[in-house]
């Protein structure tokens, strides 16, 4: 009874903490921006590390049940306070006050993680002999929660999910209480009553907090906030899923007029639109009006200078590019959209997805390309996101499998003879994305034409050379609309960009790409499936010049946030773990360096491998959300089983070596299998993924409990803290390694770390 309730308590709490992490990312993506969510949560997770220090110092006076209940209370409390803190993250480069607020947010969210980790670490330390079973409960709880949280987000609003997580904290507290009460000689069922009372009380409080949590307070600078500030603008629909919060806004007084890159020669009106926002940004219009003349003046219309019968629109969103294809006489349009709720919503709002000539495919873009057996006369990669987001480089460290050399080859392979691929991007000054796109097209051996308006560029790629007739038609199209043809060069210039022209860039890339990559002050080397970071353009060598010029507008947010986060986490882990460890540690059962090396190395390596496999299998499974959930859950569940099994291991020293070996073998296996098994149905692919992860995760679950086994009780909290800190550093370090060296190097680095951990 006692052991079982303790294990249950640990499972519940570990699961609650992991679900909390997933929910915070969701909630912060809505009220702020995704990259900031990543930063705040990464730093807050240091609460895990700090708990080790507290446990080492004051273990005797702590109660796991109280800590678990505190997790329940502070998980909601922290979010409530954060909503009232008025952080303006955009101002951070200018204002120390905002820096202070950001720091406060780290501290605030570290508290719930700290409470959860203290409760679990305390249990591990007090029951060291049972650590394999308890650690198993910890990992399995996390694994189940990762899947459950994603499923829950399909069913309920993120705020409701947050309430569930807090309630779970209180349930765990009750379970800890039962465990403790039944440990007493007079125990038995006696502990049940106060425990349940505590849980009930907590859950009632959590339910009562709802009016304080809703509505979510969104940053005043988000697109949706701007839209709703306009007179008579109002929300007509709101729905939520793990893909994002979709908010539909009608604005009768000042209509939406979304027409990215519209020609300066257009003199007509833009028809009525509804605005659909994802997480308060990235507005996509659903066109309601009938007058579609403007569509022919968008840069994307250049794809239709020749008749295109069969068209695919990738990233179709609200469907305006689908309308564009229909307006230009397409007989069959395939609209590819990732978010099923978006498809449903656009249908309900009267968008073009119900049109008899339109076929909707709900899938991730790359997956659609890989699995489609059809060929098209034109494939459009629609322009998504905002000019501001593109300028700020917020996506820099997000993977995208749509803009890699391999993807470009696959796209070209799906063109009919004479067919064209059209990709439109926002222009940045100086240009980055468009130059990289050019380099990608050249690496994929496509023939291309590049046209440009005042704020967008459209790249047309074909398998064959463009005919003189096509070129003449494109030039006439551009001439009429004040667009420029940058490649092939020649013709009138309507829009001047300072700095080296795209014509020159194209010419240089065609003659000596390596020389151009080296000389360009941004990273424009094409992205590959191994390093799918199309949006990452920052080069360290340009930093001194950018800072000297005070060119804040040219800094790349996503990447800098990652580096700044890592730097801050390093400092914080020194202060929270390493210094106390060196100064305060007594009664050593093992030298300090050895403790740090072992638990640090396995902490870093676990996430390196997890993240590398997550990415590799995302490409295989073709749906990031499910891939991440399947891989994360499998790693945790099988890791947990491995931990439970570790009690039977007699030669613990060799286990890390075994992990290193299996990791390298699995890396090769993943590469081969994911190519061979590409065409299989989803269920088979998911089973293959689990089968690939299972053996590796199983052995990866062992080193931690095996390491604990040889420690004195007083050292267990330190090991817990070091491991927790290493995991936090690991998630950021892993991304950085992947950006610069690719996923294979990441797995190899993990293997080296396991070898280091095995050193006597």
């Amino acid at each position, binding site marked *: 009874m006692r052991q079982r309730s303790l294990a249950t308590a640990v499972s519940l709490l570990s699961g609650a903490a992991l679900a909390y992490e997933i929910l915070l990312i969701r909630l912060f993506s809505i009220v702020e921006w995704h990259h900031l969510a990543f930063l705040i949560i990464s730093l807050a997770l240091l609460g895990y590390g700090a708990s080790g220090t507290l446990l080492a110092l004051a273990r005797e006076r702590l109660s796991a049940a109280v800590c678990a209940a505190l997790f329940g209370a502070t998980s909601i409390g922290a979010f409530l306070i954060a909503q009232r803190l008025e952080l*303006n993250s*955009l*101002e951070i*480069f*200018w*204002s120390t006050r905002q820096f202070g607020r950001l720091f406060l947010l780290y501290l605030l969210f570290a508290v719930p993680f700290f409470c959860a980790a203290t409760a679990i670490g305390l249990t591990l330390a007090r029951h060291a002999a049972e650590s394999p079973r308890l650690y198993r409960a910890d990992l399995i709880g996390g694994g189940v929660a990762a899947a459950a949280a994603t499923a829950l987000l399909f069913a309920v609003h993120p705020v409701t999910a947050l309430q569930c997580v807090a309630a779970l904290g209180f349930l765990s507290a009750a379970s800890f209480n039962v465990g403790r009460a039944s440990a007493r000689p007079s125990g038995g069922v006696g502990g049940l009553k106060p425990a349940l009372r505590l849980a009930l009380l907590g859950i009632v409080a959590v339910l009562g907090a709802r009016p304080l949590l809703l509505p979510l307070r969104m940053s*005043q*600078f*988000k697109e949706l*906030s*701007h839209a709703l*500030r*306009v*007179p008579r603008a109002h929300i007509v629909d709101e729905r939520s899923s793990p893909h994002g919060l979709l908010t539909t806004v009608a604005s009768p*007084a*000042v209509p939406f*007029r*979304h*027409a*990215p*890159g*519209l020609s*300066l*020669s*257009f*003199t*007509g009106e833009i028809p009525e639109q509804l605005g659909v926002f994802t997480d308060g940004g990235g507005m996509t219009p659903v066109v309601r009006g009938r007058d579609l003349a403007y569509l022919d003046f968008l840069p994307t219309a250049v794809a239709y200078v020749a008749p295109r019968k069969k068209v695919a629109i990738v990233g179709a969103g609200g469907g305006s590019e689908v309308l564009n294809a229909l307006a230009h006489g397409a007989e069959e349009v395939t609209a590819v959209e990732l978010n099923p709720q978006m498809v449903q919503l656009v249908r309900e709002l009267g968008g073009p997805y119900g049109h008899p000539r339109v076929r909707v495919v709900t899938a991730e873009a790359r997956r659609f390309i890989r699995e489609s057996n059809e060929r098209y006369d034109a494939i459009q990669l629609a322009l998504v996101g905002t*000019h*501001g987001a593109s*300028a*700020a480089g917020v996506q820099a460290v997000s993977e995208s499998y749509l803009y890699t050399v391999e993807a470009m080859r696959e796209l070209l392979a799906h063109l009919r003879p004479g067919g064209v691929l059209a990709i439109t991007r926002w*222009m*940045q*000054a*100086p*240009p980055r994305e468009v130059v990289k796109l050019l380099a990608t097209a050249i690496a994929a051996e496509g023939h291309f034409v590049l046209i440009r308006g*005042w*704020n967008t560029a459209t790249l047309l790629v074909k398998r064959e050379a463009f005919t003189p007739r096509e070129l003449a038609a494109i030039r006439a199209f551009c001439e009429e609309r*004040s667009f420029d043809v940058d490649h092939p060069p020649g013709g009138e210039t*309507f*829009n*001047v*960009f*300072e*700095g*080296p022209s795209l014509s020159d860039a194209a010419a240089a890339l065609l003659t000596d790409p390596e*020389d151009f990559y080296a*000389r*360009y*002050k*941004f990273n424009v080397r094409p992205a590959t499936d191994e390093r799918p970071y199309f949006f990452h353009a920052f080069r360290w060598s340009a930093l001194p*010049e*950018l800072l000297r*010029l*005070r*060119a*804040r*507008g*040219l*800094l790349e947010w996503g990447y800098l946030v990652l580096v700044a986060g890592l730097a801050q986490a390093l400092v914080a882990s020194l202060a929270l773990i390493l210094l106390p460890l060196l100064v305060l540690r007594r009664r050593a059962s093992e030298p300090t360096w050895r403790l740090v090396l072992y638990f640090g190395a396995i902490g870093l390596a676990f996430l390196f491998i997890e993240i590398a496999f997550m990415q590799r299998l995302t490409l295989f499974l073709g749906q990031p959300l499910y891939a991440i959930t399947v891989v994360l859950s499998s790693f945790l569940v099988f890791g947990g089983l491995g931990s439970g099994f570790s009690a039977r291991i007699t030669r613990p020293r060799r286990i890390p070596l075994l992990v290193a070996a299996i990791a390298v073998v699995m890396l090769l296996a993943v590469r081969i299998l994911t190519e061979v098994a590409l065409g299989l149905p989803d269920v088979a692919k998911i089973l293959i993924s689990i089968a690939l992860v299972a053996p590796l995760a199983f052995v990866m679950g062992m080193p931690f409990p095996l390491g604990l086994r040889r420690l004195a009780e007083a050292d267990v909290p330190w090991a817990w803290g070091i491991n927790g800190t290493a995991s936090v550093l690991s998630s950021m370090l892993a991304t950085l390694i992947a950006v610069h060296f690719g996923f294979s190097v990441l797995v190899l680095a993990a293997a080296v770390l396991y070898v280091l951990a095995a050193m006597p």
Partner: protein
Amino acid sequence: MRLLIPFLLLAATDPYERARARMVNEIAQDVRFTSGETGRVALDARVMRVMRTIPRHLFVPEELKSAAYANRPLPIGHGQTISQPYIVALMTDLLRVKPADVVLEVGTGSGYQAAVLSPLVKQVHTVEIVAPLAQQATARLRALGYRNVTVRHADGYNGWKEAAPFDAIIVTAAATHIPPPLIQQLKPGGRMIIPVGGPFSTQSLMLVEKTAAGKVRTRSVLPVVFVPLTRPKP
């Protein structure tokens, strides 16, 4: 001249005068930074003189007064900002306005940009869609005596038909495209400027010119001179 008298009076007693002088020095410094390639060492002297007189601290929220003359953008509420002084000066300079010009501004915000334009031109028309901002700016500009500025609470997309055509247009509210009515309301030979980028990081300034023949050309101007290509190896 009558217009300048309140400024002169203000300058005589204004505790912020030194801060303002420091701000103007910083702008001059920023301009010199960017001069390397363009060969432009300074902005129009008239623009710099105006930057030296406009009481920017009266255009920012009370609690940010102390930072009013820092060379940085500031939030003014309702998701809007007052631009960095350097960017305001640069945009004003790029418009090349003359004393007889009639100017349209889309996105009044605090009214600071309109105030900067006021002494340089004949008339400034400015449009703001956020009602409280439009009201505040109207009251503020009236109280400070900018008689040649008119504020209207309206949708800037359609410009200001009754006052058109304009010699210059400044669009501080971002859009996915340049509104056709604004191009129509720009005089041949006129100039329009649009800052591109986030509210706290202007990445480039888009200059739209309408030739005497009515043709429209754009030019992207970087606020900094950053040449993205290193020289080829010899």
